[in-house]
């Protein structure tokens, strides 16, 4: 697979809120912000299954899947996503996840560890601004100022 596209061509991301989660507000803002930052955004909205994320990523040849989970079931909902990506042949795709990932106020280091172990490349605490994710993605994709 070609991970290093032409710098001019807009990078593509698939965006969505996983599981039975209906928190739509952050998702709207993420879509708006990533678009404004020059990304091509395929926004699946809320209540997105792992299968839908993967299908959309394959269809759009996306560089990254940005998963949100707000409602607390993120831990259950996200398990096995990396594995399914591997099975579907997009095993190296960037996986980011953010929101209120677990039930209850939990030290973030602990949460990050759990989700990294599940195969996520970046894990964001509650209240993260889109700018943070955008900067990281540029960096991970080798955009301006980032390593390839």
């Amino acid at each position: 697979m070609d991970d290093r596209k032409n710098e001019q061509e807009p990078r593509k991301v698939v965006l969505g809120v996983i599981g039975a989660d209906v928190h739509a507000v952050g998702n709207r803002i993420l879509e708006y912000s990533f678009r404004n930052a020059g990304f091509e955004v395929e926004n699946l909205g809320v209540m997105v299954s792992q299968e839908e994320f993967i299908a959309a990523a394959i269809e759009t040849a996306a560089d990254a899947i940005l998963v949100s989970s707000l409602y607390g079931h993120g831990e259950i909902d996200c398990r096995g996503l990396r594995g399914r990506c591997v099975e579907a042949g997009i095993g190296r795709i960037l996986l980011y996840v953010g929101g209120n990932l677990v039930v209850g106020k939990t030290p973030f280091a602990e949460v990050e560890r759990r989700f990294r172990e599940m195969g996520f490349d970046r894990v964001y605490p509650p209240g993260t601004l889109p700018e943070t994710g955008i900067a990281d993605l540029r960096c991970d994709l080798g955009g301006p100022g980032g390593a390839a």
Partner: protein
Amino acid sequence: MTLSNHRLPHDEFARIRAEVLAQWPTGADVDFAEAVAYQRAIPDARRLPLRLAAAAREGTTLVQPRAGVALVDDLVDLLRYLEKEGEADLLPTTIDSYTRQNAYDDAAKGIEESRAQGRSLLNGFPAVNHGVAACRRVNESVGVPVQVRHGTPDARLLAEISYAGGFTGFEGGGISYNIPYAKKVPLEKTLADWQYVDRLTGIYEEQGVSLDREPFGPLTGTLVPPCISHAVAVLESLLAAEQGVRHLSVGYGQCGNLVQDIAAIRSLRLVTEEYLDRFGYRDVTVSTVFHQWMGGFPQDEAKAFGVIGWGAAAAALSGATKVIVKTPHEAFGVPTREANAAGLRATKQLVVMLCDQKSTETAEVRAESDRIVAETRCILDRVAQLGEGDLAVGTVRAFASGVLDVPFAPSRFNAGKVLPARDDRGAVRLLEPGALPFTKELLDFHRSCMEGRARHEKREVGFQMVIDDIYAVSKGRLVGRPR
């Protein structure tokens, strides 16, 4: 069956009921006659409609948390704690998100995992999986009324189990538990499913069991202008009353501008009573529910206490019958019981301290209240028109055409054209009125509100204002000023 706003006939109800109770094994435990007997024996202190009526008489504002965990014993402990240490007047049982999707298999897994890990992996209580006996145990463990709070588009089985399980109040409605809580469930389906829930409530009422039904006021909790949530509340009230519901609690999510918040509760009571009366539902009691700020919270706990205090104060000054309380953990996750009780006590201090200062009749409040009523009437009358007299049909058509339109709702049956933003004093107004059927005068008012703010901020009216307003409270402001 095509949807219409008529009382569900007995045989039709019975037919559906057989299906519903078969949806999950625990449905088999529901025996209506036995459940009526059980409900009748519940002491007055635990009967929600009675407690609300008493509060309305005394002019006090009752305090209620949100709370729910995966396992029965833990829920009992939690509710007892909130009653004792949180001084809660009313208790909830918040249902988990799998149950809300009728995904009882997933809920079962969540119960198992929670047992195994010794912590709740569900964001609420899976009442259907636990069944009638477990619910009764929960209710019998406490001394105050317990209401089921959820967000379930199809809550028929949940309602059956809840009422048989001794709960005396049930939140939700065909609009308010669809549009903010679902992506692709048709309104025809949820309206019909909630006719069932309301009819179920009605037949309990006919057996002398009084139950409270509460449309979910705050909708998406994010900059919802009062007229939109009021219109939904009134419609759900009318649809419920048609099915025989006798006790309604109509709700509103705090916007943050004091005059608007007080006026919203005042107008909500007035406009609900007006329409119930106009449509001939005369023996229905109405109480009001004030939800403390429902949007994004500040992460810092002390700042969260500030927001909670402001919600408590506004609730008391508005004279709402009850206030639903947030916690200092809001920005992070489902609160610990200690955090939950702390939110309750901070609120209790203020609602009791301020109970003598209701300010519903100042000139400012009356003017704002009159405008909210006028806006709400615009919407409701167009809904009736669209439905050619049938409010259920009208509701479906109104959403299809954007006459009813909830900001930031995930449902694809919601137009999503309306954009709200705050005016220069922080009241929520319409930046983009979409297809809301307002008079020119009302539209002009909203436009001039936005222009006033734009002038002050020296920037154009636009979507950036909306984004700034969404983040504002979590960043310590109400109006999202440019930085």
